[in-house]
C-alpha cells in the first residue's frame, strides 16, 4: 500500500442477541460512536461490510440506507460483500479510496451483521452460501462439519489432541472476560468444552462461535488529516487481500490456508516488518484448529506445530504472541460481516493504550486476519501506533 492511511475514530456495539434492534440500528450506533471519536468530521464516503442482510433481514442496499439514516449528504455509499470477510474487505476498499485522494474528508467504514432475525439452522444454511455450492453447500455439510474434518486430519497427522487445540477457545474466553463489547465475557475450561454437546465429531459446541449481532465502525483518513482529527490516530501500515481455493479438499494440502499465507507475506513486506515484530494478533479462528493453522501460516510456528503455541499458553496476554486479545471469534463473538471491523477497532484500542485489563504492554504493532469461510478470501491488516512508520 503506497501512501499513508490512519484511523481517526473507532466505535462498536456489544456483540449479542439484539432482538429489538435492526442491522441499521446497530450500524448507526457504531458509526455515531466512531464519528464522535474522530470529532464528528464531515465524511465523503461510507463503506459497509455485510455478509447477508437480504437473506437475514430482508433488507439490501445497506450502505445507502446507512448514509440516509446518518444524514450524510451527497456521499459515496458502497456495500462490500465477501461472506464473513466483508468487514475487513470494506476496510481494504476504504483504504484504497483514501489513497485515491479524490477528497480530503475522511471515510466511514462499518461492518454490520444482524443474524438473530433467523433461527440457528437457517443461519447455518445461509453461512454455507458463502462456500462453493457445487462442492460444499449442496453436500449438506456445515462450517463446523468442515472444521471437524480438518481437526481430525490435524490431530492424526501432527499428534495433537483435541484438548491441546481447544486451549485456544479457553484463551479467547479468558480475554473476552475483560472485553466490554464481548458476547461471551466469561472464562470457560477445557472440561466445559469437552462436556458440551457434540456438533460434528470431534468439534464441541463450546469450540464454535455462537451466533451474534454486532456492528463496528472506523473513520479513515490520509495520515496527516487523521492526526488533525485525533491526537492519537492509528496507522494502517498494510492492507492486503488474497483469494484462495474455496474448497480446502482441492488445495495441495487441506491443512493449509494459502490465501492467509500470501496475504500475510504481502502485508508484512509492505509494513517492512517480520512477523515476530508484531505485538499481538487478531485471528479468524472459526474453530480452534483454524487458529492453529493460522499461527503456522503467519510463520509463528512451523507446519504442524501451531497447536504447541496454543497448548503451551504462548498466545496468552503477556506471553510471546498474544492472540485474540479481546476474545476473538469465540469470545468477542462472530457477527460475520462485522468481525473484520471489530478486529480493527480492537487493534485501535490496543495501540492507543485503551484496552483496559487486556492491554498488551507496549503494543506498537498489531495484525488482524479476517477471512471468508475457511480461506476462500483472506484479508490481512497491519496496524501501528502513530509513532511507528512503515
Amino acid at each position: 500500500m503506497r501512501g499513508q492511511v490512519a484511523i481517526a475514530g473507532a466505535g462498536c456495539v456489544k456483540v449479542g442477541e439484539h432482538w429489538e434492534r435492526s442491522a441499521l440500528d446497530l450500524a448507526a450506533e457504531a458509526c455515531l460512536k466512531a464519528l464522535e471519536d474522530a470529532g464528528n468530521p464531515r465524511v465523503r464516503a461510507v463503506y459497509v461490510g455485510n455478509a447477508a442482510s437480504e437473506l437475514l433481514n430482508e433488507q439490501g442496499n445497506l450502505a445507502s440506507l446507512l448514509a440516509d439514516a446518518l444524514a450524510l449528504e451527497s456521499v459515496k455509499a458502497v456495500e462490500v460483500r465477501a461472506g464473513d470477510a466483508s468487514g475487513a474487505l470494506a476496510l481494504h476498499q476504504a483504504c484504497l479510496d483514501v489513497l485515491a485522494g479524490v477528497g480530503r474528508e475522511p471515510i466511514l467504514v462499518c461492518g454490520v451483521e444482524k443474524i438473530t432475525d433467523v433461527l440457528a439452522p437457517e443461519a447455518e444454511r445461509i453461512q454455507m452460501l458463502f462456500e462453493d455450492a457445487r462442492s460444499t453447500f449442496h453436500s449438506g455439510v456445515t462450517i463446523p462439519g468442515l472444521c471437524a474434518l480438518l481437526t481430525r486430519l490435524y490431530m492424526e497427522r501432527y499428534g495433537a489432541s483435541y484438548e491441546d487445540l481447544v486451549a485456544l477457545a479457553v484463551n479467547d474466553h479468558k480475554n473476552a472476560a475483560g472485553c466490554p463489547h464481548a458476547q461471551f465475557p466469561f472464562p470457560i475450561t477445557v472440561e466445559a468444552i469437552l462436556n458440551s454437546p457434540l456438533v460434528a465429531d470431534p468439534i464441541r459446541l463450546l469450540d464454535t462461535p455462537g451466533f451474534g449481532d454486532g456492528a463496528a465502525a472506523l473513520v479513515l483518513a490520509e495520515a496527516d488529516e487523521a492526526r488533525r482529527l485525533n491526537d492519537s490516530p492509528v496507522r494502517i501500515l498494510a492492507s492486503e487481500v488474497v483469494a484462495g481455493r474455496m474448497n480446502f479438499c482441492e488445495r495441495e494440502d487441506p491443512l493449509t490456508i494459502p490465501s492467509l499465507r500470501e496475504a500475510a507475506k504481502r502485508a508484512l513486506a509492505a509494513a517492512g516488518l517480520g512477523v515476530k515484530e508484531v505485538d499481538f494478533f487478531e485471528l479468524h479462528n472459526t474453530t480452534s484448529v483454524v487458529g492453529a493453522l493460522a499461527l503456522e501460516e503467519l510463520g509463528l510456528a512451523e507446519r504442524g506445530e501451531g497447536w504447541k503455541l496454543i497448548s503451551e499458553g504462548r498466545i496468552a496476554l503477556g506471553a510471546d504472541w498474544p492472540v485474540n486479545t479481546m476474545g476473538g471469534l469465540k469470545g468477542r463473538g462472530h457477527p460475520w460481516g462485522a468481525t473484520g471491523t471489530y478486529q480493527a477497532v480492537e487493534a485501535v484500542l490496543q495501540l492507543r493504550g485503551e484496552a483496559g485489563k487486556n492491554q498488551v504492554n507496549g503494543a506498537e504493532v498489531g495484525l488482524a486476519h479476517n477471512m471468508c469461510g475457511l480461506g476462500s478470501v483472506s484479508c490481512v491488516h497491519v496496524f501501528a501506533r502513530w509513532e511507528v512508520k512503515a
Partner: protein
Amino acid sequence: MKPIRPVGIVGYGGYVPIYRIKASEIGRMWGNEGCGLPIVEKAVAGPDEDMTTIAYEAARYALMRARIDPHEIGAIFIGSESKPYAVKPSGTIVAEALGIGSHLLAADYEFACKAGTEAFQTCIGLVGSGMAKYAMAIGADTAQGRPADDLEYTAASGGAAFIFGLKSDETVAYVEGSCSYATDTADFWRRAGQPYPRHFGRFTGKPAYFRHVVTAAKKLMEELGLGPEDFDWAVFHQPNTKFPLKAAKMLGIDKKKLEPGLLVPYIGNTYSGSSPLGLAATLDVAQPGDRILVVSYGSGAGSDAFSFVVQDAIEEKRPLAPPVKAFLARKKYIDYAAYVRFRGKLLK
C-alpha cells in the same frame, strides 16, 4: 389485583399420567448423545387419555379435598392448548363427568402455558364479587412437540385443579394478591389447523420468559410491599429445568424454595398444567402461615403472578387425596415406538 372480599383455595388436586419416556430415549431416536438434555424424563398421556380425562382426574381430587357439594360450583374454566375439540367446550365434559350441576358458567381458556392461571384469576374475581359461591380452575395439557424439535424432549401431559371459595376455616390457602403482565411477543405459536407449535429458539428466553416472569413477580411484590425473602416457597412456569432456576436467581429467591414444586425434571413441561401442578406439589408440603409465590408464563406472551398464604385447613385436607409426589413415583417407562403410538404420530 385483589378481590374486594378475601378468596382462598378450598380444594386442590393434581394428576400426572403413568407413562414416562426418558429424554435420553428421545435423544437416541434423533442422534443426540445426551449432552445438554433439558430434563430427565417426561410424562406421556396413555392411549385412553386426553386433556379432559387429565382435567377430570385432577378435579376429582380437588373435590375430595374441598368437601363441598359439587352443585355449589357455579363456574368451571379449563386452561389448555390441547383441547380435544377445536369447537366444543372441554369444561362441560369435565363438569358433567364430575356431577357438577348444569347451572354453570363454563369456558375454555387459551394463552399458551398460562391459560390455567388465568382461570385462577377469573375464579377469584367471580367468588370475590359474590357471583359464584365456588368456582373451579383447571390447567391441563397433553402438549405437542414436533418430532426431533427441541420441544419434543419436554412437551408433556398433566394437570391440576383448584376450587376457589371465600376465605374461611375451610380454605387451605388464601390469595394475597395477583398481578399480570402481557405483551405481543411472538416467541412460540401454533396456527389454527397445525398439529405442532413453532418457536423462535433462543428468543423464547430473555425477551420472552424472563422478561415477563420477572416483571410480573416484581410488580406483585411491589404492590404487596413484599420482598423475595418474604416468600417461603416459589413456583415458576417450568418449560425446562434451567429457566425457573434462573428466574429465581434473577429475583433473589433461594433455589431451595423451588424444590417441592420443581417437577419438570421428572414429568416435563405440562404447559397449562405446569405452574398449577407446581403449586399443588408445594401445598403438599407447606405449613400453615407459609407464603407461596406462583408465577406462570404463557408464550405470546404473558405472566400471572400470585401470592398465597397457607392456612390451618391444609393439615386436615392434605391427606384427603393423593399428593403430587405419588404420581411422580407411579410410573411405567415406554420406548419411542410406544410414544409414537400413544401420541397418535402414526397414520393408521
